[in-house]
C-alpha cells in the first residue's frame, strides 16, 4: 500500500461534519465519511481544526507561511508529504484514491 502522508488543515469548524454549522455542507460530510472509511482500513489521515489546534497552524512553517500570505479564506489546505497540493477545497474522492493507489469504490463502501 502507498504510504504517502496526507494531512488536511481545516478552517475553524464546529465539528468535522459541519453539522453544527448553519446548514449541512455536503462536502464536509463527504470528506468526514471518506476519512472514516480510510481509518477503518488502517489509514490515518491527520486532520486539524483551526479552532482546536491553532498551534499547528503556527508551528508548521509551510502552513503558517501560506496562511499569513493568503489568509484564512484559502482554507482548507491539503498537504501530501508536507507539500501543499490543494487549497480552498477538500480533495475529491478521485484524488484521494489516486494518492493511496486504490479505487474510488473503496472509499465509499456501502454496507
Amino acid at each position, binding site marked *: 500500500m502507498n504510504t504517502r502522508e496526507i494531512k488536511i488543515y481545516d*478552517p*475553524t469548524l*464546529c*465539528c*468535522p*461534519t*459541519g*453539522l*453544527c*454549522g*448553519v*446548514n*449541512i*455542507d*455536503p462536502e464536509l*460530510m*463527504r470528506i*468526514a*465519511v471518506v476519512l*472514516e*472509511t480510510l481509518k477503518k482500513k488502517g489509514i490515518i489521515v491527520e486532520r486539524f*481544526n*483551526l*479552532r*482546536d489546534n*491553532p*498551534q499547528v*497552524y*503556527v508551528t508548521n512553517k509551510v502552513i*503558517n507561511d501560506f*496562511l*499569513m500570505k493568503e*489568509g*484564512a*479564506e484559502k482554507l482548507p489546505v491539503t498537504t501530501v508529504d508536507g507539500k501543499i497540493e490543494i487549497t480552498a477545497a477538500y480533495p475529491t474522492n478521485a484524488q484521494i484514491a489516486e494518492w493511496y493507489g486504490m479505487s474510488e469504490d473503496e472509499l*465509499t*463502501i*456501502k*454496507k
Partner: protein
Amino acid sequence: MIQYNPAEQQFTKYIFFTGKGGVGKTSVACATAVNLADSGKKVLLVSTDPASNLQDVFELNLDNKGTEIPEVKGLTVINLNPEQAAAEYRESVIAPYRGKLPQSVITNMEEQLSGSCTVEIAAFNEFSDILANDEKREKFDYIIFDTAPTGHTLRMLQLPSAWNTFIDENTTGASCLGQLSGLEDRKDIYKLAVNTLSDSDLTTLFLVSRPDETPLIEVERSANELAELDIKSQNLIINGILEQPDNNDKISKALYSRQQNALKNRPQSLLNMQTYFIPLRSYNMVGTANIRNMLTEDTAEQLEKIETIKNDFLNIENLIDDLYKTNKRVIFTMGKGGVGKTTIAAAIAKGLAERGVKVHLSTTDPANHLSFVNTDGLSVSHIDEKAVLEAYQKKVLNKARQTMGDADLSYIEEDLRSPCTQEIAVFNAFAEIVAMSENQVVVIDTAPTGHTLLLLDATLSYHHEVERTQGNITPAVRDLLPRLRNPQETEVVIVTLPEATPVFEAERLQQDLKRAGITNKWWLINSSLLLTDTQNPFLKSKAQGEKRWIDEVNKLSEGNAVVMKWESS
C-alpha cells in the same frame, strides 16, 4: 406545611435552589446564606444564572472569583456569568495567537468561540470546578447555589451525564466538544460534579415556587426531570404566601383565595414532598437588611400617608394600536420567566386579530404555557425543543442518506448527539417561524431571558457565518437577522413586573438587544397592584413600592410603558 427557617433546618454541604425565574429563588438562596453566615457558619453563595441578580441584591459588583460581603461576616459570593466565563475562555484560547496568525483567522476564531456551545461549556466548567474544589469544600461549611431558571437549570444539570455518556460513547474521537481542549482531562471533575449532585448526603435541592397554578405545575415538571437525573433529595419552598386575608378588601381576598386554590390543587406528586412556605413580604428583596429579615419578620413601614395614584398610564390597547398602525410584521414579547409574556403575546395576537390582521402566535418557551392561554381565532404553534431536535436530526440523516451507506450514517448520527446540535435545531425552527411573517403577522413569546439572550447571540454569530459559508442557506435563515434588525418590521415588547429584580433584569435585556442591533420601543409592566383599588395597608404598601419601578421603566422606555393591572385569574 411549615415555615422555612434555616436555623431549624439540617443542611447538606451543597444546597441548590432552583425554580422558574421570578419565583424568588435568588432571595431565598441569599436569605439562607445570610442566615447561615449570621449563625457563625462559613458560607459560599454561587450564582450560575446567566441573568443573575445577585449584584442587585447585595448592591455590589461581583465576579466569578469570589467577593466577601462586608455586612455579612463569613459570607462569600461568586457570580458565575456564563457569558463572561465564555469571554474569558475565548480570550485565553486566542491571546497566544494574536500576531502569529492572520487577523482574519483571529476574527474567525473569535466568532466560532462566541456560540452558545462555548457559553454552556464555560459555565459548566466553572460550576463543576466549584463542586470539585477541595479547598472550597474545606473552607466553607455550606456551598449554596442560586441556579438558573428552570429550563436552563435542567439543561445545565443534564450536561454532566450527557457529556459523560457522550465522551464514553463517542468512538470516533471527533465531536463538537473538541473545542474544549483537554476535555478528557476534565472528565474526572465532571464525573465528581455529577456524583455530588445525585448524592443525598452531600446535596439538597430546594425547588422554589410561587403559590400560583402555573409555577406549581412547572415545579412538578422540574422535580420529575431532576429525579430522572438521579437528583432525588428534593424539597419544595413556596414563596410569598399571604397568611391572612383582609376580609374588608376585595383584592386581598382575591389574592388569598387564588393562592389557596393553587395550593389545594397542586400536583399530586408535590403533596408528598417536604414542603416549606415563606410569607409574602411587602418589600423588595434588595439590600442585606431586607434579605436578613425575609425569613423572620415583615418590616413594612406603616405608611403615614397613602398617595393617590392618578392612572394616566398607557394601556395594552395603546400598544396594540401602535403595532397595528405601524404595520409591524414580527412582534416579540420578551422578559424573564414568570412575568406573563405568554399571556401578553396572546393578548397582542388576539388584539391584532380583532383588528382584522392575520396573526400567528408562537412560543419558544421550553415550558410551554400556550395550553393555558385563550387563543381563539388565531393560528398557534410552539417550538418544542425536543421535537424540533428530532426533526432536525431526521432531516440531516435523510440528506446524508442520499450520499452514503448505513455504516457511514452511524458516524453522522454520532455527531448529531452533540449538545450544540440542539441549539442549531431550535434556531432553525425559530427562523422558520419568523419567515412566516411574509404573509401574516407573527407574534412570538420567547423563552426565559437567559435562553433568549443566547438565542439572539447565536442569531448574531450565525449571521456572520451565513455570509461566510457558501453552502446552501435557506431563505428563512438568510433573512432572519436583517428582519429582526429592521424597526419597520419588528417590535420587541419587553415585559416586566413592577419589582426590583424583574426591572433590573429587563434593563439588561434591553442592553443586550441594543448590542445585537435590535430596536425596542415598547415596555409592558404586568400585574400592578397599584392599578387595583386595594385598601389593605399591607398590599397598599406593596403597591406603593411599585411606583419607583414604574417610574424607572418609564425612563428606560422613554415614555412607552404600558401598565397592566394585577388580575386574580
